[in-house]
């Protein structure tokens, strides 16, 4: 039976453009449904399994509404497809995107305000993870994003190596350097195990900038990229890779570098890594040694950015599909689903009721690593609400970070160039 939300028979030029990308809606032939909600998601591996099982549960329990979850690659591939689909007027009703692009998509006017949906009112979202805590001034804006898979950067330690060396998790940058040097092992002047590993990625650099006391965007709106704090953040990586030779710069860009960091840690080639809380369960389940999670160290202060993605409804989708999507989101925020998503993946529970329930069940006593992810929210910092920040991140800062760490350019000159380019970005 054809869904009410299937496209009209006449194919427009835009639909034809979208067809090769698999963007046109395909009605489900298996069971009759009144409303179909296309959901584009960008989780792979274990996270994908968990999401699909939750979607399956929803579809089983809601006969007239069917959520059709479609995998769209990693975050950035999914985002590219979403934007093309928006241009082709073939976008799904529901998707999820990284927080950095929410201001950009809001400015483009493609996001549906969520305050018109009764099922989404009064959700007990954890403040640091909701729109109000994720962006400066987020509470004053119309709600357009709801948190789902939210995370922060976190440190993972090889428990066996740390215990053998009698070391504990570093709490300052100086301790980080000293610990990494102690755990770095060389044979015949060749490093066989690095003390520290971290993807050369904007997210971790932003954490370092905040720890050094800097802000990416000043209160007047000027993009400063942390000023001197930004330089100090980059210099820490340079020192650890070039001078100390205690940090392994992984190859590849984007998520290849993240995967490589995980593999280095699991294989014992790196003793301590920084990566997302999202990998907590994956690393715990696949390591041949005890994995110990620890908060990131601080310099002048402790601070971490939040990450992960937010649910969005797309304005151009049919009204019935958006209403059905809102019902599905309410289901996902119910305690059972919120807990299951968090405990099976490692993402932070996004509702206070879910955290409270886990506390009461003694979950955090049994899984102390999970507690670290919750406790670190105390130092979570909001992102500036800047529609330009996404481009500055992807086009300017990210390639230059890589250049500064893998090349020979000084941190100061790299960031001066980044600031000049960001200013030109307007």
């Amino acid at each position, binding site marked *: 039976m054809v869904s009410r939300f299937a496209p009209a028979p006449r194919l427009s030029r835009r639909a034809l453009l979208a067809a090769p990308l698999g963007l046109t809606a395909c009605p489900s032939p298996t069971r009759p449904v009144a409303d179909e909600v296309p959901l584009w998601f960008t989780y792979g591996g274990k996270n994908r399994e968990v999401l699909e099982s939750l979607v399956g549960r929803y579809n089983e329990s809601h006969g007239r509404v069917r959520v059709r979850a479609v995998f769209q690659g990693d975050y950035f591939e999914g985002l590219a497809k979403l934007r*093309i689909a928006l*241009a082709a007027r073939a976008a799904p009703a529901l998707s999820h995107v990284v927080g950095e692009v929410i201001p950009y998509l809001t400015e483009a006017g493609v996001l549906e305000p969520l305050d018109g949906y009764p099922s989404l009112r009064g959700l007990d979202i954890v403040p640091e993870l909701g729109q109000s805590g994720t962006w400066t001034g987020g509470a004053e804006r119309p709600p357009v994003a709801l948190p789902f898979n939210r995370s922060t950067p976190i440190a993972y330690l090889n428990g066996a190596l740390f215990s053998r060396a009698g070391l504990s998790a570093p709490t300052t940058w100086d301790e980080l350097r000293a610990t990494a040097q102690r755990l770095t092992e060389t044979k015949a002047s060749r490093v066989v195990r690095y003390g520290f590993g971290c993807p050369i990625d904007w997210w971790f650099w932003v954490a370092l900038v905040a720890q050094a006391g800097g802000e990416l965007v000043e209160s007047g709106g000027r993009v400063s990229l942390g000023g001197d704090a930004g330089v100090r953040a980059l210099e820490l990586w340079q020192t650890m890779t070039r001078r100390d030779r205690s940090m392994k710069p992984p190859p*590849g*860009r*984007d998520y290849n570098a993240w995967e490589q960091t995980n593999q280095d840690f699991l*294989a014992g080639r790196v003793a301590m890594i920084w990566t997302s809380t999202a990998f907590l369960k994956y690393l715990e389940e696949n390591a041949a040694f005890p994995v110990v999670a620890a908060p990131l160290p601080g310099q002048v202060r402790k601070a971490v950015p939040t990450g992960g993605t937010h649910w969005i409804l797309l304005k151009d989708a049919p009204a019935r599909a958006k209403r059905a999507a809102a019902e599905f989101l309410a289901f996902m925020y119910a305690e059972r689903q919120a807990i299951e998503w968090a405990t099976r993946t490692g993402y932070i529970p996004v509702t206070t009721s879910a955290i409270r329930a886990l506390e009461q069940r003694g979950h955090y006593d049994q899984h102390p690593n999970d507690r670290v992810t919750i406790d670190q929210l105390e130092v979570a910092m909001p992102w500036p609400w800047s529609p330009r920040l996404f481009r500055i991140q992807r086009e300017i800062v990210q390639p230059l970070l*890589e250049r500064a760490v*893998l090349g020979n350019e000084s941190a100061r000159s790299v960031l001066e160039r980044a600031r000049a380019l960001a200013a030109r970005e307007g």
Partner: protein
Amino acid sequence: MRPRHRLDPYWMLAPTFGVLVLFFYYPLGRAFLHSLYEWDLLTPPRYVGLENYRVLFTSGALLAVFSTTLAVSVTAVLGSMALGLGLALAVNRPGAFAGFVRTSVFSAYVVSWVSVALLWLWMLDADAGVVSALLRAAGFGRARVLADPSTAPYALAFVIVWKIAGYSMVLFLAGLQSLPPSVLEAAALDGAGKLARFRHVVWPLLAPTTAFVGTTSLILTFQAFDVVRIMTQGGPVRSTTVFVYSIYEQMFMWLRVGRASAEVVVFFAVLLALTALQLWAYRRREAV
């Protein structure tokens, strides 16, 4: 043969011309039009004239991408042509074994770029790759060829050589087999050895084939995308951001439709110039 009707040639040409218009001239025209706008697909396009071209040329981005593309392509083309010619000379003989080698070498060209890229990604892996293990055993230390900006473009070029050497070999083989035997026999009777025959007879006679292989291989390598997307994503430090990958980045990662279109137009001009150069060289030689 003269056409029965004066319109006959035109309707016979029409299907090909139609396909060309639909899939080549029209998209190219649209790309040129888009290159005059700033557009992110989400907000209305804004006319900016030649601003996209000015940014590309003055920011140094185009020069960097062009240099990278040229370095990868020239290395890959020279390597694949040398290997292809050597293999063609070696297997230009009857026999089952020569046939087996010809098929084996050409089979790499038939395999998809994605498979080839994945295969070499594993083989070049700094920790678990067989190539890295061999380099370590030979005393080169831990070879991180794909992670080092100075070696990554050449590692990519090497993979391209491996993939397209079979294409060069087949074309050179065809060229060798079309050489007039009488000329080679005459040279042999005049006392020319194998090396002299190759240098003074075979190589000059293969010039048209060499020009064709060179140009088509260059265009082929200029269009490399899959191998970059899978193996390096343009890094490290943008050292493998070739033309097509840069267009992809502008269009799909950064949503700069205007700038991506400007790069498409420049890329088209570069390929057109290369093809014109090849035709000019070929015709000049014919005239001589």
